[in-house]
């Protein structure tokens, strides 16, 4: 508590000093796109004379307070024509600006949209931004633009490979990423086992990935934050765009409800039922669809309302015997309110759920599981002065976890209906963070988040002797589940356990000269939810579980230091960072843990620890016909679970072992070349050290079967992963003077047809009786063609 007290008193002190400094006037407003009124995120509003400026927030709002005077205001953004205007500030002023897209105005495609240009002044480090335009340019398998596949090209981001859900950031696990879609938490970001992500590329406005130095306004996950904002809809005119591909098609409609005040947006995507030709000859199918719907309405200058919904499902069926459905549902209401020209607020009410269902006709049952949450967020952005901005807010999330429910699906089924016990929890967070420009060269960002987690009462709560659900069998040197001494039914109004954490965040940037800066950051974070997964790649079936009496929250400490430099007027930029992080209470699974339909999950998990460190390098060419980047990461990611007492061996004998997402070298090279108005070319090259895995060190026979013997965990590696992709976009010239704008994208994924191993398994060959190693690879060379249109 003392820490919190000191923090708030010093904040008040800082606020006072800045408030009483001078008579200031405030310029505030909203910046939007000229043709659609779509608000723009991250637009810079600069006053060069005072060498100060702000950027617009997630709702396009900015506010800057400066002494009385006449200033030149420069407004600039990614891919838009800048505006320079002279303004006399002698009273507070509200000014909205509209920016025009650059390409629309110029005859020649002079590419100056430095979309992801490095911002060397802001203390925020370890963050990567991608615009919807650059995501769409990146060649991907099957021709479908994809957010998650795009961020994999950034330093410090890897995935378990083709066909694996999610992504790993700086050696962290998939469940340690906070994925926000219009402020709502998304629990599974993948369609079709990771071949697609759940985000519709046409609807995306802004994507930011925070890998470190995570601001205090975010909490609940320890590795990264992927913050995605979708378009709100065009309130000027009706627009339609879409694409037709080999495996999926999409359509997006947007238009005004009331001109310049309200707009709607509806988008949908669907893949074709028989996506995989290999499965098409019998009654198998695999497909997904998703739907985005949004409404926004401007009540008046100070109030905006937003309503949005997302619904996505994957369906996977094998003849009539097996059917599997899963997906996210999100509904979201937001209210932007300006208390004053300096105080912006957003209130969000969010419902989200993730559902997983399985129907297995052979055994005659239907299986349902999921996680559901209600989320209330109230965030304030307080633009106190040009040197000092304060953000604060609260967040409360109520969770209901349904680990599984089984019931018979036909009358002659022998299945007895049964329910794994629902779990309930509440997570509360309050934060305050400041961005504080101390001198012209030194800017600080500091904040504190208080998080409070309650695991609420439930039915069938297992009580163990000495509160120990996992016993060590010293005869066989193995861990085993204990037998509960008692099973209690505890009311939901009672609390099983509570956790409190104070999470300080700190960042600083020091401007060495106009073109280079040094940044440093520290963040401490707590994560109360865990995704139960002990497979080499995460699956949609993995179940989330809350911290509680037997599972501690994961606690992270991360330190990062970086050097940032722009060359040749920002044509080139270099970002280098080193990071070190430690995570306490990373759960680990005892050997042979069975997580599926396990009602006593506490009996198979132990709390361990994890650590990761590495070096990241990102060199970009931001301007010109040829653009692109080279990203390189050298890193290490390990975990261990020592014995709780000196008699216990711990998991893997208590020694550090590689996590499945430890990739020593990770290189990605991305380039795009605009030949002329008609043709543009894109290419990716990726190289990653093979994923850690287990190979047998011996064999023995048991009941006539050949059984492999395994050594310590994750000692071997799969062969290195690499591939080259190319794509060509053709924009027909006849587009110019007509309403319909169209383009064709031709792509080849994995050009040299490398058979990258998704797994190597070992088995006895049924015919020869000899043992052999079997490689599974997902995609060889995959050509694709997509037709995109808008009018």
């Amino acid at each position, binding site marked *: 508590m003392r820490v919190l007290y000191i923090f708030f008193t010093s904040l008040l002190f800082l606020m006072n000093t800045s408030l009483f400094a001078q008579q200031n006037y405030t310029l505030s407003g909203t910046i939007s796109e000229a043709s659609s009124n779509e608000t723009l995120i991250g637009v810079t509003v600069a006053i060069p004379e005072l060498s100060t400026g702000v950027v617009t927030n997630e709702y396009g709002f900015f506010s800057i307070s400066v002494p009385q005077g006449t200033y030149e205001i420069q407004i600039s953004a990614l891919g838009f024509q800048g505006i320079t205007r002279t303004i006399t500030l002698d009273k507070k002023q509200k000014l909205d600006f509209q920016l025009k897209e650059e390409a629309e105005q110029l005859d020649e495609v002079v590419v100056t949209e430095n979309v992801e240009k490095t911002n060397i002044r802001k203390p925020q480090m370890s963050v990567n931004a991608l615009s919807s335009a650059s995501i769409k340019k990146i060649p991907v398998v099957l021709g479908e633009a994809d957010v998650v596949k795009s961020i994999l090209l950034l330093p410090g981001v890897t995935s378990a490979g083709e066909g694996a859900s999610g992504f790993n950031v700086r050696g962290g696990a998939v469940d340690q990423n906070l994925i926000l879609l219009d402020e709502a938490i998304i629990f599974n970001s993948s369609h079709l*086992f990771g071949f697609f992500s759940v985000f519709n590329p046409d609807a995306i406005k802004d994507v930011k990935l925070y890998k470190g130095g995570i601001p205090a306004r975010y909490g609940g996950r320890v590795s990264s934050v992927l913050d995605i904002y979708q378009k709100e809809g065009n309130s000027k005119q009706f627009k339609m765009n879409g694409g037709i591909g080999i495996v999926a098609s999409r359509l997006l409609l947007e238009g005004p409800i009331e001109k310049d005040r309200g707009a709607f947006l509806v988008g949908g995507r669907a893949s074709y039922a028989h996506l995989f030709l290999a499965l098409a000859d019998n009654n198998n199918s695999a497909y997904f669809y998703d739907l985005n719907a949004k409404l926004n309405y401007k009540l008046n200058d100070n109030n905006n309302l937003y309503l949005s919904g997302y619904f996505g499902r994957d369906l996977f069926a094998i003849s009539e015997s*097996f059917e599997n459905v899963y997906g996210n549902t999100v509904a979201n209401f937001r209210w932007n309110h300006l208390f004053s020209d300096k105080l912006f607020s957003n209130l969000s009410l969010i419902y989200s759920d993730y559902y997983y269902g399985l129907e297995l006709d052979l055994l005659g049952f239907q299986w349902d599981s999921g996680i559901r949450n209600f989320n209330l967020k109230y965030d304030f952005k307080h633009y106190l002065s040009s040197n000092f901005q304060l953000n604060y807010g609260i967040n409360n999330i109520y969770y209901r976890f349904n680990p599984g429910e089984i019931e018979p699906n036909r009358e002659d089924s022998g299945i*007895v209906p049964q329910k794994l016990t629902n779990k309930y929890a509440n997570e509360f967070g309050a934060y305050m963070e400041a961005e504080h420009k101390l001198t012209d060269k030194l800017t600080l960002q500091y904040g504190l988040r208080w998080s409070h987690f309650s695991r609420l009462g439930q039915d069938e709560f297992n009580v163990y002797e000495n509160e120990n659900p996992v016993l060590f069998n010293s005869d066989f*040197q193995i861990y085993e589940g204990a037998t509960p001494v008692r099973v209690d039914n505890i009311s939901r109004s009672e609390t099983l356990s509570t956790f409190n954490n104070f999470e300080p965040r700190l960042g600083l940037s020091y401007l060495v000269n106009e073109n280079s800066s040094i940044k440093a950051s520290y963040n401490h974070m707590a994560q109360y939810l865990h995704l139960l997964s002990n497979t080499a790649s995460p699956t949609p079936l993995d179940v989330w579980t809350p911290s509680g009496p037997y599972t501690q929250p994961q606690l992270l400490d991360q330190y990062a230091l970086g050097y940032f430099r722009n060359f040749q007027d920002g044509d080139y930029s270099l970002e280098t960072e080193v990071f070190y992080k430690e995570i306490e209470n990373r759960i680990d699974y005892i050997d*042979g843990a069975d997580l599926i339909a396990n009602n006593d999950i506490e009996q198979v998990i132990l709390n361990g620890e994890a650590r990761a460190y590495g070096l990241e390098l990102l060199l970009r060419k931001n301007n010109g016909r040829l653009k692109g980047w080279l990203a390189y990461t050298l890193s290490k990611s390990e975990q261990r679970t020592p014995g709780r007492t000196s008699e216990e061996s711990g998991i893997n004998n208590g020694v550090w072992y590689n996590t499945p997402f430890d990739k020593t070298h990770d290189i990605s090279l991305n380039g795009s070349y605009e030949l002329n108005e008609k043709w543009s070319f894109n290419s990716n090259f990726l190289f990653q050290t093979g994923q850690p895995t287990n*190979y047998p*060190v011996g064999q023995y026979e048991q009941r006539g079967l050949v059984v492999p013997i395994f050594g310590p965990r994750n000692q071997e590696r799969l062969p290195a992963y690499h591939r080259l992709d190319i794509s060509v976009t053709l924009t027909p010239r006849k587009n110019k003077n007509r309403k319909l704008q169209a383009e064709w994208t031709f792509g080849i994924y994995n050009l040299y047809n490398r058979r990258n191993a998704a797994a190597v398994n070992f088995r006895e060959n049924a015919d020869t009786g000899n043992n052999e190693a079997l490689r599974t*690879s997902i995609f060889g060379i995959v050509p694709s063609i997509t037709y995109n249109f808008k009018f």
Partner: protein
Amino acid sequence: MKKILIISFLTATLIGCEDVIEVDLPSSEPRLIIDAYLNLFTQEIPVRLEGGVRLTLSEDYFEDEVPIIENATVFITNLGTGIEYPLNYTGADGWYRPENSTDFLDFATDYELTVIYENETYKGTTQIQPVAPINEVRQGTRTLFDGDEIEVIVSFNDDGTRDNYYFYEFGFDEFQPIEDQFFQGSEIVFSTFFEPEDVSVGDTITVKGYGITKQYYTYIELILEQTGDGGGPFQSLPATTRGNIINTNNFDNYPLGYFSISEADEEKLTIQEL
């Protein structure tokens, strides 16, 4: 059930392709392997005994054969009465067998297996586990993936008074462990599928059911998971599975394998053209 759930992911990997590759594998020190199971068919007179104790050594993974052990001393003790029952070497393939099946039918006692090999003594303890008699084995018409598998449907009545664990054997190295978690006290009906290259019309298949302990159920599930074709990228982190036998002299030189005694039942079925 787990196995069936995993099918979904197996199938996901079917869209990719599989090929056999060369891999260099590390070696490990050989260990004693004790494959000890006594299956007692109590519905037959006299009670038939299958199984015994098979002693072998572990070997490097890509070797074709594992070494067999012919010179060990093996006996089982009824810990209630203290009587030792010797198992004698059969002269073939590392198998040691007892003389009388009826010596192991006491459901109220612990049985201890002792193996003495190269001056080290290995011991494991178990109890005989009851089985529910098979109600019926019949042929079904459903298929699994390719549309030409042969379905065999097995049913039995679970004993609702206790948690039961069963282990089914179908031949062709096909096994299925079953727990009654979702079937407590009801009739359990399940299907297994034979590949057409293994079984054709006119063949007789034998379905055997065994009662096993919870610990053995966990053990054999892991063994089966590791010996299957593997779940591709969705296979769980493999680990060497310790059984229920220890080395009483040299703790670290532990054996692998399991000692179990099961009540057993079997039914035969001749495959017909449907």
